[in-house]
């Protein structure tokens, strides 16, 4: 267990952990939700079965669609899987490629992924898919400033916007955690995550009513391996966001400080455990609140914006 | 002298409590007695030796004594006036049956109760020692007077009372913020845990940190200015003054506004020692000129008699602010005299207007006609009150405005010129409206519906305080007694930092 892994391997493990752990987190949330609602819910490993099944099916594309429709799901998945290279997934120290991009870069790559999906959906000519992509871009335009404010606040707190540094700052003592700026920004980020992952109160996850859909509607025309790639991509995106939230903002503990195999393995387990706890919290939120009317979503985002702005205010003008 | 001071806050309170139990007539007598005793006590304090009288939380010096005089004069005047004011309604209620009579009893009792409590709070405000207690007393005046404004329970009264209590309380919230910042400033020198009493604060005012004091002063002008009726936070004032029963309007305008102004003066005292005179004076000049300009414009085109008088109050508060803003000792003495003159004149005007409104059953200036013929006594007296308010000699307000303007030309000529110009406009508006009410003959068509109202008689109770007011106005205008001139001079010296 004292085998020291080469750093590129650790970096690859970061990506692998996210890629392979993502379906599990999704499965746990779905199961927990089922239990909370008095159902038995799907099996924990159901998402893996789904993926396997979808990859084995034939795929159909609308006649109007072009090459981009086919490429987009994999492009998006690729985008989402690039981000784990940049953020602290397993290690508390920056890995060789970790300084390729900061938080801003990470969130740009995430946005690029969802942009690709939206364009592909728009290309199909299907009204529901287009509705989903236009909605997700409309609301995305409001969540983007929130994300930016979060990044700015982090930048002011740490003097840099490298996610590793913020994690280290938070670990440095309880006085860094109870800073109002940190709490507010974390709360704002959490709300953005709820929005980005299509959870209540923004969107009913896995619902079948097209009129309330945002993210889900975009995948209507895809099938087979393309659909699998899209699904997988959205799960990966979810776990990436969870990881940023946990390992950078809220709970940057249990990460490996070395490249030893034992530590890294432990970090994998810790990450999945933290993500599962967060998933349970989200499952509880999912079942205890009602979905907002579509036009009320701006209010939800306005609230997140408010939190982020206040965070910036307290920090920049109030010294808090 | 200490006894007199303590009695001054006990007597009206006792009268308030007594009004809960006593039968109506006795309650009214107690109110009047308490008013006269209070006036006597204030007059006794006039002859107190030394600069100030202190008793525990209470403290009276020349500055606060001026404001006590204003309240102390209006309290018995309004108490007497309301006996006559309620007598009218008593007759009407007696005619309407036992139910109406019982309703009236309850109304009249609440009225006397409120009157005493209101006067008590207003006597407390200048008598307490310290900015914190001053705020408390002024907030109490707000809530009590809001109930008095609403006491008629008409639609208009309800609306006016709600606006009043909301706007004035919010303003006082800002005033509380001012108190807190002043405390902070004082704590830097006097240490934590002191009680914001005036003397130590003034003594160390020069060492206080400038920023918090500046903040506290601006917040105080804005916050307490809400209750003074300074532009732009005067919006509640015309509503409350016009919808309240006339005796309450007289107290609101003559006493309540200036008591809040007193609070601003206390902040000014500290601020000009800490910051120098320039900044606080400029602030007051700006607020004063703005209020005066607004009031002058509204006076020109006003349809409602009591709103007319209310805007005249805004005008006079503007004059007070400008006068203090001049900073000259002569202007300051003029301001203090103006406080007394305004109390007497505006009290008279509202009490006279109350009779007029009763007799004609309307406040609409276009329907009030021929007042001089209809009201043999009140008509001329109202005319005198309006002339006094317009600053005509030989009344007190002429003397005070003259002092203010003369003082002003030595320090801030532009503001003094603006003052004169705007006062002339205000005079045109006020005098124009009132003379048409009094002199223009009645239109025949209007007579029919007002004959019934005409039959009610104005009583001696409603006349006596108005006559007393005229006497005071003339005495103060022609030759103020030596003791009063001395008081005003000492108060002005206090206000201008003893220059």
């Amino acid at each position, binding site marked *: 267990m004292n085998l020291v892994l080469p750093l590129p391997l650790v970096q690859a493990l970061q990506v692998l952990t996210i890629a392979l752990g993502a379906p599990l987190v999704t499965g746990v949330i779905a199961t927990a939700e089922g239990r909370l609602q008095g159902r038995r819910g799907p099996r924990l490993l159901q998402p893996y079965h789904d993926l396997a099944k979808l990859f084995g099916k034939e795929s159909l594309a609308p006649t109007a669609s072009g090459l981009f429709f086919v490429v987009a799901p994999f492009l998006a998945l690729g985008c989402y899987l690039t981000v784990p290279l940049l953020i602290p997934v397993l290690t508390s120290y920056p890995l060789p490629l970790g300084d390729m991009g900061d938080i801003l870069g990470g969130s740009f790559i995430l946005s690029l992924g969802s942009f690709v999906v939206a364009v592909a959906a728009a290309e199909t000519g299907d009204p529901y898919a287009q509705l989903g992509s236009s909605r997700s871009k409309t609301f995305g335009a409001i969540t983007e400033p929130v994300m930016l404010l979060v990044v700015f606040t982090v930048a*002011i*707190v*740490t003097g*840099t916007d490298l996610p*590793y*540094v913020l994690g*280290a*700052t938070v670990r440095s*003592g*309880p*006085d*860094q*955690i*109870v*800073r*109002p700026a940190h*709490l507010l920004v974390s709360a704002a980020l959490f709300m953005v995550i709820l929005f980005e992952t299509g959870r209540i109160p923004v969107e009913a996850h896995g619902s079948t009513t097209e009129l309330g859909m945002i993210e889900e509607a975009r995948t209507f025309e895809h099938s087979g391996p393309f659909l699998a790639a899209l699904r997988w991509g959205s799960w990966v995106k979810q776990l990436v966001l969870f990881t940023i939230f946990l390992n950078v903002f809220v709970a940057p503990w249990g990460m490996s400080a070395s490249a030893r195999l034992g530590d890294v393995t432990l970090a994998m387990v810790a990450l999945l455990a933290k993500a599962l706890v967060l998933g349970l919290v989200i499952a509880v939120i999912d079942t205890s609140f009602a979905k907002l009317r579509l036009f009320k979503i701006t*209010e939800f985002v*306005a*609230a997140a914006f*408010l939190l982020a*702005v*206040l965070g910036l*205010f*307290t920090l920049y*003008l*109030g*010294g*808090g | 002298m200490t006894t007199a001071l303590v009695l001054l806050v006990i007597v009206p309170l006792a009268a308030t409590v007594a009004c809960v139990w006593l039968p109506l007539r006795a309650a009214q007598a107690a109110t009047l007695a308490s008013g006269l005793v209070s006036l006597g006590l204030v007059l006794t304090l006039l002859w107190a030796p030394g600069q100030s009288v202190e008793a525990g939380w209470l403290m009276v010096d020349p500055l606060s004594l001026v404001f006590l005089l204003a309240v102390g004069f209006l309290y018995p005047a309004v108490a007497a006036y309301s006996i006559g004011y309620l007598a009218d309604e008593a007759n009407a209620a007696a005619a309407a049956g036992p139910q109406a009579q019982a309703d009236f009893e309850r109304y009249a009792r609440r009225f006397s109760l409120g009157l005493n409590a209101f006067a008590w709070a207003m006597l407390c405000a200048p008598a307490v020692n310290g900015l*914190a207690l001053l*705020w*408390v007393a002024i*907030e*109490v005046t707000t*809530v009590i007077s809001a109930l008095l404004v*609403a006491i008629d*329970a008409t*639609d208009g009264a*309800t609306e*006016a009372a*709600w*606006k009043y*209590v*909301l706007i004035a309380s*919010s303003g006082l919230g800002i005033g*509380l913020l001012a108190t*807190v*910042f002043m405390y*902070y400033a004082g*704590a830097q020198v006097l240490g*934590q*845990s*002191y*009680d914001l009493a005036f003397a130590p604060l003034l003594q160390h005012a020069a060492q206080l940190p400038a*920023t918090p004091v500046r903040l506290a002063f601006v917040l105080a002008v804005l916050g307490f200015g809400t209750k003074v009726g300074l532009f732009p936070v005067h919006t509640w004032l*015309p*509503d409350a003054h*016009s919808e309240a029963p006339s005796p309450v309007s007289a107290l609101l305008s003559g006493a309540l506004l200036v008591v809040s102004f007193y609070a601003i003066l206390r902040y000014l005292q500290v601020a000009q020692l800490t910051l120098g005179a320039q900044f606080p004076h400029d602030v007051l000049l700006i607020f004063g000129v703005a209020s005066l300009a607004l009031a002058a414009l*509204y006076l020109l085109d*006003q349809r409602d008699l009591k709103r007319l008088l209310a805007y005249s109050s805004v005008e006079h508060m503007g004059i007070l602010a400008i006068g203090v803003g001049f900073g000259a000792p002569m202007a300051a003495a003029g301001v203090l005299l103006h406080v007394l003159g305004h109390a007497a004149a505006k009290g008279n005007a509202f009490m006279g207007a109350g009779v007029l409104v009763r007799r004609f059953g309307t406040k609409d200036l276009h329907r009030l006609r021929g007042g001089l013929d209809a009201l043999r006594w009140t008509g001329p007296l109202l005319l005198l009150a309006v002339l006094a308010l317009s600053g005509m000699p030989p009344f007190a307000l002429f003397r005070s405005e003259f002092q203010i303007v003369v003082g002003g030309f030595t320090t801030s000529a532009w503001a003094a010129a603006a003052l004169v110009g705007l006062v002339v406009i205000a005079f045109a508006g006020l005098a124009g409206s009132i003379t048409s009410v009094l002199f223009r003959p009645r239109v025949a068509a209007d007579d029919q519906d007002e004959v019934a109202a005409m039959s009610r008689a104005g009583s001696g109770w409603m006349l006596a305080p108005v006559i007393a007011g005229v006497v005071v106005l003339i005495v103060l205008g022609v030759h103020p007694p030596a003791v009063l001139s001395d008081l005003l001079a000492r108060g002005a010296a206090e206000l201008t930092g003893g220059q």
Partner: protein
Amino acid sequence: MTDVTQSVPGLYDGVASSIAVVVLLLEFLMLRAAMLRAQVRLYAVQSFAVSLLAVAVAYGRDVPELYVLAALSFLLKAVAVPAVLLRLMRNADAEIAGSGVLGVASEVLVSIVVAGVGFFLVGQLGIESDVLPSAALSLSVAVVLVAFVLMIMRRDVVSQAVGFFSLENGVSLASLVVAAGMPLILEVAFLFDLLVAVVVFGVLMRLHHARTQSLSTEMLTRLRG
């Protein structure tokens, strides 16, 4: 890793400012809350937060008087005042929801701007307190300003009254920052004053409801000019 550009506030400061932030957030929630009852409850929670901050100051800065103040203000503002208001609303079973001049999102945006101005101005003043971090002062001024927005934007007597009471909470917060040492007797006098104001607000609200059969202030437009 520790190139921290700003001086890090201590743990106590962090807790205190966080509570102050909660007070401001509750003010924003009041602005958002459509249900009048919810608004009153939010006010109760806000008062509780202010009392909590008083306890924190009493403990952290060793000002034992503040324990008494915290207890009194909790009893009065978090229990008595909301109870009175809720009782009034039970008797006046008219509307349950108030209405605003603007939509909620715009109201929040306006308030953000207003609060930002407050933050900026207080930051410019450079008032330092040795009791609480200066962020708390900025926050309290922001609470006061947002309370004004609430009173101006909402069109019903309950919201306006709650706006005024929460304004007072903002001032209490400010007084904890800059005047924590104020003698207890004065603080109690302030609280007593608030109680009187609540009673009068209550009486006028009932009168208003009796006259108009409604809690809305839309029809209060008779008096102008």
